[in-house]
């Protein structure tokens, strides 16, 4: 399948350089970039083009002291990109939430399908789980650490229709979704994750690769009130084409 979509994905490089792609496409492009030096070079060129739109403007003088003061107190990260990420290619989101841990939780809607949901208060429960989380998620440790440090974080669990169990850790607009004991999706089907907003509009959060019935997906910075998983034709869909087999809202 990868060979079939590659020319398409390559065509997305200009839109990617403009940040004009959705989350699923962004991931597809980043996978391409990891393995294809020509694509990286092409992206570098498009980034120069996009940067040519920028016009230098003198920032407010007051900001300077505040940035320099924060810099003096902020440790740097190493050059080595984490496995699976396209950093060095893509600026990481690491620093994004550093200021003043966002307290807003927009998890207002409990989707009707989430009947058996158990919401677990955080931080105590999560703090206990933190060690396990870190061990299992080394590649995502920074983000997950940040999520776990968020006092408004919650975990929600539910059974999956057709078998298995799913849980989601929610902190602000970030979600760590996990499911286990899932039956095989079928030869020409895939599990796909969605972030659903209060009006029921779904944004793809990626096609999930089920490894021995377990899936795990970190979704960053997608506002929504619930996550849902569906079974879609192989390769995923732009919009859900089947009823969700699990919906997790809190």
């Amino acid at each position, binding site marked *: 399948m990868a060979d079939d979509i590659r020319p398409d994905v390559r*065509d*997305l*490089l*200009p*839109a990617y*350089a*403009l*940040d*004009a*792609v*959705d989350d699923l496409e962004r991931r597809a492009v980043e996978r391409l970039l990891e393995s294809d030096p020509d694509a*990286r*070079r092409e992206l*570098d*060129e*498009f*980034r*120069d*083009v*996009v*940067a*040519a*739109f*920028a*016009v*230098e*403007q*003198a*920032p*407010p003088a007051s*900001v*300077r002291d*505040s*940035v*320099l003061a*924060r*810099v*003096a107190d*902020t440790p*740097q*990260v190493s*050059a080595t*990109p984490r496995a699976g990420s396209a*950093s*060095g290619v*893509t*600026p*990481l*989101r*690491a*620093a*994004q939430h*550093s*200021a003043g841990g966002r307290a807003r939780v927009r998890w207002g809607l409990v989707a009707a399908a989430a009947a058996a949901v158990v919401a677990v208060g955080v931080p105590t429960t999560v703090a206990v789980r933190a060690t396990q989380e870190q061990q299992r998620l080394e590649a995502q440790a920074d983000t997950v650490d940040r999520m776990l440090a968020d006092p408004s974080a919650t975990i929600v669990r539910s059974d999956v229709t057709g078998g298995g169990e799913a849980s989601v850790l929610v902190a602000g*607009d970030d979600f760590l979704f996990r499911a286990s004991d899932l039956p095989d999706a079928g030869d020409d089907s895939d599990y796909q994750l969605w972030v659903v*907003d*209060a*009006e029921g509009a779904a944004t793809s959060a990626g096609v999930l690769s089920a490894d021995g019935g377990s899936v795990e997906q970190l979704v960053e*910075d997608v*506002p929504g009130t619930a996550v849902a998983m569906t079974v879609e034709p192989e390769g995923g869909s732009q919009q859900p084409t089947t009823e969700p087999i699990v919906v997790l809202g809190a």
Partner: protein
Amino acid sequence: MRQTVRVPPPVTTNPSGAVDAALAACADGDPASFTPVYDALAPVAYGTCLGVLRDADHAAEVMQEVMVEVWQTAARFDAARGSARTYVATLARRRAVDRVRAEQARRDRDQRDLDTNLATAPRDIVADDVERMLEGAAVRRCLGSLTDTQREAVVEAYYGGYTYREVADRLDAALPTVKSRIRDGLIRLRECLGVNRG
């Protein structure tokens, strides 16, 4: 931003080896070494944020986060792949677009909560604004090499912070068409600007 005095166009294509070297040197962890980097690159971060956010306070806020991130990730800057200016402009744009999309999502929710239909499109892009924002941009002279439809698609995506799917919706054009316009538009700009890392 609303100044009436015409500022001389900033030199955006100047050989920036010194700034590149300064950013690379910051990776050693000495916060004092970041001061010249801030002075050289904060204006491109701020200008980039303003182009997308068009609000001085928001832009200053996002720019701050961007510059702290530039410090944090200095070790990941690779001058072989692009200039420090492009590196910072890329980071700033990503953050500004994130902000615009988050704000839009919040507005959409508020809108629904208020149950009002006063849908003033907050990210509308006015031609005059675009002209003003492009003043002094290296890309300006090259936009003429694009077809009208290519220019429209690229400008919507750049200044609106839209995905190409959203651009297609707004222009009421087919998705593959808009994707091609953006791609072909950027390819023409690349040629006109003489960007070549081959």
